[in-house]
């Protein structure tokens, strides 16, 4: 009986695909079409992000206010990729001086991310925001990936910058910028930011970080 069954099967294979295989292929195709339809429907009904939450009045910025190209960067001072992207961003700002403005938004993902962001803001109150940001990125291997607050190191960096230490420490220990950082993170989530660094060029999210220089050049030359 089973021998006979096998012979029949072999004959069927010679004739073409087995009935079961055909049905599975048809179901598979139907599933792909169904999912593509659902994906299309979701993309279509997704509301475009409100641009008003992309840039806030109090967001730190560098470069000409009337610049042709606005880069918004959602960053985390403790994020290694942000550190890796930092020289590229700095280069862009100097290459296209006058044409590009950079606006920083926070998207903290690590233990010391928020405190580091506060340290940059505290330095910013004394006009040294970007210097502190650079110092934090440069020294990230010393203070990053730690499970305890690294306030001592941040204070040390502030000394290097010659800041008024009383004022700096007071801000660092205060909750003054907590709301701002949380709001930035919520804005980021609403805009579809999933990781750092995430760049927006004139409101358009950059999908591939390494394409940033090309996209900025195109936007400037447009």
């Amino acid at each position: 009986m089973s021998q006979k069954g096998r012979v029949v099967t072999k004959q069927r294979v010679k004739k073409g695909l087995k009935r079961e295989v055909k049905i599975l292929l048809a179901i598979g195709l139907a599933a792909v079409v169904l999912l593509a339809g659902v994906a299309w429907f979701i993309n279509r009904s997704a509301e475009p992000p409100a641009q008003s939450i992309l840039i806030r009045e109090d967001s730190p910025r560098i470069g000409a206010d009337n610049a042709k190209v606005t880069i918004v960067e959602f960053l985390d001072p403790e994020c290694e990729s942000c550190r890796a992207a930092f020289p590229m961003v700095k280069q862009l700002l100097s290459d296209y001086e006058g044409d590009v403005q950079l606006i920083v938004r926070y998207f903290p993902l690590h233990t010391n991310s928020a405190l580091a962001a506060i340290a940059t803001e505290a330095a910013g109150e004394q006009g040294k925001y970007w210097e502190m940001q650079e110092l934090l990125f440069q020294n990230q291997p010393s203070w990053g990936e730690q499970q305890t607050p690294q306030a001592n190191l941040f204070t040390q960096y502030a000394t290097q910058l010659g800041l008024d230490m009383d004022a700096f420490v007071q801000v660092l220990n205060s909750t003054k910028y907590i709301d701002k950082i949380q709001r930035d993170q919520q804005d980021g989530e609403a805009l579809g930011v999933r990781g750092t660094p995430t760049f927006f060029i004139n409101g358009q999210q950059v999908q591939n970080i390494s394409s940033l220089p090309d996209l900025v050049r195109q936007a400037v030359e447009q």
Partner: protein
Amino acid sequence: MKMIIPCSRLFAYVQPNLAYVAWFQVFVATLGSLYFSEVMKLPPCMLCWYQRIFMYPLVYILAVGIVLEEERIRYYCLPLSVTGLVIAVYHNLLYYHIIPESIAPCTSGISCTTRQIEWLGFITIPLLSLVAFTITTVALLLYKKDKNT
């Protein structure tokens, strides 16, 4: 009585095809979850990974079983689908705060209770997983090969 007879006839027709229903479900679930993570870039949480582990092999095991007209297909597939179902139930209990998150085994990466998607106000990823494992398990339990073919 009159209602029962058509229903049982319908069931007699559906029953031998339930393996296809199960395969359709696991295939859709596999493609859908890959779409969430690879296209929409939503990071899968720890429990989602465990559910994926029990969902993905079913695409192949079920397909091979169907093609070979394996009558005992459910014995290969139910261990996977029931385990996945148990994890999905647990995940949904956490997700909807029916049991507290403090005992959740999510220590690194994204939290298992982070709400990433809420379509039409109630369709969430853990709910989709629960539905998928339920349909697969029920279909496999009720599946019976047609004696005539």
